[in-house]
């Protein structure tokens, strides 16, 4: 673009003064913020005893452990490990499914287009928020104390934590649904259940299915972690072998977990594409 003639420039400057005048405070804001962030970061490093010397010493140890891990070898425990891996996958699958099944009806109560009144919707939302605020790991510790060690506690932990997350996600999907389709059902003489069943669910279920699959994926990882604190599955085996310093078994277990997670990722990716793909391409 060519240069504007000076009178035109003057006119624009007069008409939009805010665009041209950049006060000192605006110019200094960004550098000041970067400086403050750097200061907080440095303070954190000092306060948390960050020590390059210890890290270097640790590297020596890490190298040694890595050497001990090669080659990965399950010894005679392979069948037990496979059972444990199956247990972990079941924990993820069952926990996520139960969480989703319970969350679906509750999410309807948290959606504005189903329950317009804030007085009823608000407590449901807060309830879901508070459940979601507690991490899966903490739920696992809670349930281990309630129902004892083992996979049952793991399933409950994942179900409860996911219930909170799903409740929020589902209700958002429901609120984003196209109102016109629901109105079409109402105008034809459908009741509230018909509106949900035929107007809402066909729109919402594919979204929900995608979210559930994604959670199964990430819960395969969570189920391993909560196994370490005693909720059964392959995490328990891993914790055990680390404690007795069986590094070859540890590396084998880690490889098993990696392969399982990759397989689940792949399968759920395919499924999700099959569910939403058609729509996304259209």
């Amino acid at each position, binding site marked *: 673009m060519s240069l504007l003639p000076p009178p035109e420039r003057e006119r624009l400057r007069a008409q939009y003064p805010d665009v041209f005048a950049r006060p000192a405070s605006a110019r200094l804001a960004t550098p000041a913020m970067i400086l403050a962030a750097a200061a907080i970061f440095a303070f954190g490093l000092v306060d948390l005893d960050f020590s390059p010397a210890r890290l270097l010493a640790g590297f020596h140890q890490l190298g040694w452990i890595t050497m001990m891990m090669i080659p990965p070898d399950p010894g005679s425990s392979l069948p037990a490990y496979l059972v444990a891996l199956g247990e972990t996958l079941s924990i993820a699958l069952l926990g996520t499914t139960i969480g989703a099944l319970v969350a679906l009806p509750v999410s309807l109560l948290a959606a504005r287009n189903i329950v317009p009144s804030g007085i009823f919707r608000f407590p449901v939302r807060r309830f879901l928020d508070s459940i979601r605020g507690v991490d899966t790991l903490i739920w696992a510790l809670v349930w281990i104390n309630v129902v004892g060690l083992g996979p049952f506690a793991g399933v409950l932990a994942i179900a409860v934590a996911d219930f909170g997350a799903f409740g929020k996600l589902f209700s958002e999907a429901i609120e984003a649904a196209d109102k016109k389709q629901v109105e079409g*059902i*109402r105008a034809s003489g459908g009741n509230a259940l018909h509106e949900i069943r035929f107007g809402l669910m066909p729109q919402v279920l594919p979204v929900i299915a995608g979210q559930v699959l994604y959670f199964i994926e990430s819960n395969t990882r969570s189920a391993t972690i909560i196994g370490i604190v005693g909720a059964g599955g392959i995490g328990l085996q891993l914790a055990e072998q680390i404690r007795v310093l069986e590094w070859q078994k540890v590396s084998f277990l880690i490889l098993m977990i990696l392969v399982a997670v990759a397989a689940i990722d792949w399968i759920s990716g395919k499924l999700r594409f099959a569910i939403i793909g058609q729509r996304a391409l259209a």
Partner: protein
Amino acid sequence: MLVVEGLTCRFGTKAAVDNASFSIAPGSFVGVIGRSGAGKSTLLRMINRLAEPSEGRILFEGVDVTALRGKDLRQWRARSAMIFQQFNLVGRLDVLTNVLMGRLADMPSWRSLTQLWPEEDRALAMSALEQFDMGSLAAQRADQLSGGQQQRVAIARALVQNPEIILADEPIASLDPRNTRVVMDALLRINKHFGITVICNLHSLDLARNYCDRLIGMSAGRVVFDGAPAKLTDQIARELYDLEANEVMGTTSGEAPADSTIPALGTAAAA
């Protein structure tokens, strides 16, 4: 006989429909005309009870429709079938299921919710689809159809409701000229063939004059014209739409456009 008495609908302080009164004989084809925002959609939505009237009554064959609740209300909605500008089909359901939605008010909920549609209802839906050459598309997903095809599905859905009135809210506003004819002819056929009353919101005066045997003109929520299309003189038509033309002029520059039809760069930027 549909009787509307002093019907008013307010959103906040603004009256979208203001004290509308008229009655419509069975079997009429009535066009509702008026500029954008005149209250045409709100009027139709109140008759179907999608919008709540603030004042006034709607009577159908002596029954006060505005007082209906629950199952009676749902049955009234089925009897006054609504057709929308955006079709309002469920995109992810197939065409047949969309048409079967028109049967919801007449069957027990356990049947419809489990999709155990009675044989005769399926037959009814297929026959309605066939009348609009849509029989072969019954298994297609509704959102894979063209606009004209979707509107024909919506009309089939309305038809299986066994309606006494069809309320069509700008049914052709999203369609091309060919589909406009197809859809308007379908409405006319339903009107003449089954004697179903049609009340149709239209933007185009030409269409309104061609298809309707009575026109109701609305302006700012009020009924300002009610009579045969022949009585709608150019003078009245201009009054119905003129205000809008003035507004359109006012927002650009207030002056007559320059001799070139392409606006100069400066005026476009200023607008």
